[in-house]
C-alpha cells in the first residue's frame, strides 16, 4: 500500500508545532467566518489569501499556508451549521438544507442535540471524503479524465432535476426560480464565444451576477426582513451544549448509519464531479427524506434531517479538493479560490503535483485528517461563545448584520452596485419565501449556470446538435435517464395518487 506509506510521510510533515497552531487558528477563524452571514468559505479564504504570500516564501511554507487556508475552509463548513440551527440563517449556501430540520430542533429546545449531530456528521463526512482522497486520487483522476462535456452536463441536469423531483414546493415555482437563476447567470459575457448578451447597455453587469451577492441578499437581508415581521423580539434559539448532550446525541447517531453512508457517498460523488457541496446537501436531504421511515416528519425537527445534509456537505466540500489537486479542476468555489492560492505560490496543480510536490500533497492530505479533528474539538467546545451572540437584542444585531452584509457584498468585487443588488435580492428573498418560491435552486443556478451552459454547448458542438449524445454510453445515459426520471417524479406521484384514489373509490 503505497498510499499508507505516503500518508505516514505526510503526517510527519504536517505534525509540527507551527502547523498545528495554524490549524487551530484557521479553524477558529473559519468558524467565525462561517457563522457570520455574508462572510463565507469562498470569500473568507479569498480575503485571507494575501496574508499567506509571505508565509509561502520560507521552505515548507506552502504546506503551512495551505493548511491555514484549508482549515479556514473546514471551519467555515462547520460554522455554517451553527447559524442555520440557531438563527435559521444559513451561514453558507450548503447549510441551507440544515435549516430544514436543524432550526425546528432548536425551537423545540434541542439545539444542543442538533449542533452535536451536525458537527459529528460533518466530521464523519469529511473523514470518509479524506479516506477517498487518500486512496482514490490516482484512480479517480483517470476516471474523471474520461469525462467529456456530455457527462458534465448530465451531472448538472441530474442536480437540477433532483431539485424539481425532491422539492416540497410547487414544481413550476421551483422551475421558475431555477430558470431565473440561469437567466441571471447568462447575463454578461457569453462563456463560450465572449459575446455580450442581456446587458441592455449596462457595462456594470458584464461579468453577470455573482452568486455571493445573491446569497447575501436572499438569505441575509431577506431573512432579517422576515424575522422583523414577528416584531423586534429576537428569533434565535439558545444553545446549551454540554458533555451530557454530546454523549446522548452520540448514542443516538449510530441509528442513522445508513443515512450517513448514503449521504457520504452522495457527497463524495458530488464533490468529485464539479457539483459541489450545496447540491450534495440538498440531494442527500431529499434522498434521506424519501427513504427514511420518518420521511413525513422531515422539516419538523428530525435529527436524521440534520445528519443527511451535513454529512454530504462536508464530504462534498472535502472531496471537492480531489479534482482540484489531481486535475486542476476545482469542484467548488472555495476549491477554486484555493487553486488560485496554489498558483500564486508557484505550484501547478495537476497530476504532476503528485510526482513533483509529494511533501506538499501528502502534507495537505494528512492535515485534512488533523484539521477536521481540530475542527470538531473547536466547535464542540466553543459553542457557548457563539451562543453569547444570541443574547444581543435584535435592534443592535440587525443593523450590524446589515453592515456586515453590505461590507461582504462590497468586498466581492469592490463594487458599490453590488450593495444595491444585495438589497434587491433581499426584497426578492422576502417575497419569494412568503410565496414559497424556493431560493436554493435559484442560487445554485447562478453558481452553475455558466458551467452548465458551457458543457451543454460543447457537447452540442461535438455531436453537431444531436441530443442523443446524452445517451451515447452507459455512464452519461444512466445519469441523463435518472435526471429525466426525477424531473417527472412529481407527475408520476400525482398520477399514482389519482389511480389509488380511483381504485379506492371503485
Amino acid at each position: 500500500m503505497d498510499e499508507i506509506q505516503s500518508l505516514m510521510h505526510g503526517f510527519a510533515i504536517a505534525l509540527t508545532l507551527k502547523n498545528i497552531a495554524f490549524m487551530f487558528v484557521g479553524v477558529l477563524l473559519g468558524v467565525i467566518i462561517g457563522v457570520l452571514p455574508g462572510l463565507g468559505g469562498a470569500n473568507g479564504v479569498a480575503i485571507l489569501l494575501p496574508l499567506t504570500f509571505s508565509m509561502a516564501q520560507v521552505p515548507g511554507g506552502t504546506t503551512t499556508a495551505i493548511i491555514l487556508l484549508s482549515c479556514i475552509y473546514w471551519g467555515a463548513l462547520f460554522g455554517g451549521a451553527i447559524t442555520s440551527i440557531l438563527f435559521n440563517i444559513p451561514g453558507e449556501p450548503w447549510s441551507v438544507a440544515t435549516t430544514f430540520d436543524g432550526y425546528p430542533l432548536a425551537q423545540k429546545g434541542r439545539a444542543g442535540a442538533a449542533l452535536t449531530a451536525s458537527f459529528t456528521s460533518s466530521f464523519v463526512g469529511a473523514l470518509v471524503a479524506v479516506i477517498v482522497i487518500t486512496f482514490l486520487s490516482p484512480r479517480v483522476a483517470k476516471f474523471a479524465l474520461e469525462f467529456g462535456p456530455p457527462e458534465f452536463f448530465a451531472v448538472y441536469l441530474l442536480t437540477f432535476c433532483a431539485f424539481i423531483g425532491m422539492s416540497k414546493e410547487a414544481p413550476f415555482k421551483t422551475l421558475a426560480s431555477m430558470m431565473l437563476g440561469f437567466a441571471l447567470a447568462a447575463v454578461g459575457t457569453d462563456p463560450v464565444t465572449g459575446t455580450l448578451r442581456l446587458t441592455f447597455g449596462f457595462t456594470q453587469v458584464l461579468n453577470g451576477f455573482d452568486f455571493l451577492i445573491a446569497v447575501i441578499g436572499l438569505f441575509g437581508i431577506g431573512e432579517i426582513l422576515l424575522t422583523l415581521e414577528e416584531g423586534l423580539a429576537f428569533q434565535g434559539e439558545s444553545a446549551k451544549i454540554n458533555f451530557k448532550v454530546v454523549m446522548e446525541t452520540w448514542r443516538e447517531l449510530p441509528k442513522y448509519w445508513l443515512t450517513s453512508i448514503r449521504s457520504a457517498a452522495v457527497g463524495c460523488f458530488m464533490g468529485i464531479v464539479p457539483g459541489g457541496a450545496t447540491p450534495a446537501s440538498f440531494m442527500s436531504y431529499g434522498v434521506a427524506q424519501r427513504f427514511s421511515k420518518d420521511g413525513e416528519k422531515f422539516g419538523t425537527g428530525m435529527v436524521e434531517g440534520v445528519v443527511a445534509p451535513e454529512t454530504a456537505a462536508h464530504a462534498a466540500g472535502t472531496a471537492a479538493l480531489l479534482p482540484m489537486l489531481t486535475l486542476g479542476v476545482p469542484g467548488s468555489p472555495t476549491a477554486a479560490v484555493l487553486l488560485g492560492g496554489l498558483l500564486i505560490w508557484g505550484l501547478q496543480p495537476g497530476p504532476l503535483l503528485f510526482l513533483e510536490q509529494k511533501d506538499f500533497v501528502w502534507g495537505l492530505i494528512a492535515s485534512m485528517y488533523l484539521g477536521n479533528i481540530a475542527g470538531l474539538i473547536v466547535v464542540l467546545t466553543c459553542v457557548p461563545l457563539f451562543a453569547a451572540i444570541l443574547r444581543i437584542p435584535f435592534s443592535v444585531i440587525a443593523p450590524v448584520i446589515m453592515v456586515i452584509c453590505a461590507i461582504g457584498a462590497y468586498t466581492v468585487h469592490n463594487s458599490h452596485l453590488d450593495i444595491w443588488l444585495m438589497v434587491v435580492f433581499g426584497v426578492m428573498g422576502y417575497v419569494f419565501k412568503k410565496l414559497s418560491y424556493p431560493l436554493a435552486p435559484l442560487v445554485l443556478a447562478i453558481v452553475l449556470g455558466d458551467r452548465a451552459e458551457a458543457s451543454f454547448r460543447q457537447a452540442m458542438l461535438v455531436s453537431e446538435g444531436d441530443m442523443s449524445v446524452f445517451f451515447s454510453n452507459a455512464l452519461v445515459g444512466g445519469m441523463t435517464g435518472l435526471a429525466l426520471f426525477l424531473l417527472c417524479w412529481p407527475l408520476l406521484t400525482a398520477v399514482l395518487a389519482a389511480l389509488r384514489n380511483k381504485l379506492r373509490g371503485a
Partner: protein
Amino acid sequence: MVEGSGERAAARYKRVDIVVALIFLAFGAVVAFDSWRVGAKWGDDGPQTGYFPFYIGLIICLSSIVNLFKGFAIRPERDGVFVKVGQLKLVLSVLLPTMVYVGLISWLGIYLASTLFVAFFMRWLGKYQWWKVVLLSVGNSVFFFLIFEAWFMIPLPKGPLESALGLG
C-alpha cells in the same frame, strides 16, 4: 402595532402571487426576446450566444403561465393574508433606512454611514440611552475599520471624514 389597523391585510396572497407570476412572465419574455436578438439559432460554428438563454427564457414564460393559472385558481376562502399592515410597517421601517444607508455609503464612506445606521436603529427602534448608542455605533465602525483596513488590508469605501482624519 398589534391592535386596530395593524391587523388589517396590506396585501392578500392571491394578488401578490399573480403579480409575481406576471413579473416572471415579463422577465422571461425579455430574456427570450433579447436572446433572439443576439442570435438563438444554430450558426456555422455551433450554437449561437443566445441559444441557451433563449430556451431559459421560454421555460420561465411557460412555468410562470402555469403559476399564473394556479394563482387565479386560488379560491377566496383559501386566500390568506400575504402581509399585515403592522408587519409591512415594521419591514419598511428597516428596509427604507437600509436603502438610505446604501445610498449614503457612496459619499460618506462605509464607516461613517454604518455608524449613523447602527445609531439610528438603536435609538429609534431599540430606544437605548444615548451613551450606549454612541458607544456601540462608533465602536462597531472602529472594529470593522481595524479588521479590514489595518488587519486584512482590504480598502472599503471611504468618505470626507476619513480624508479629514488622514486615514483615507
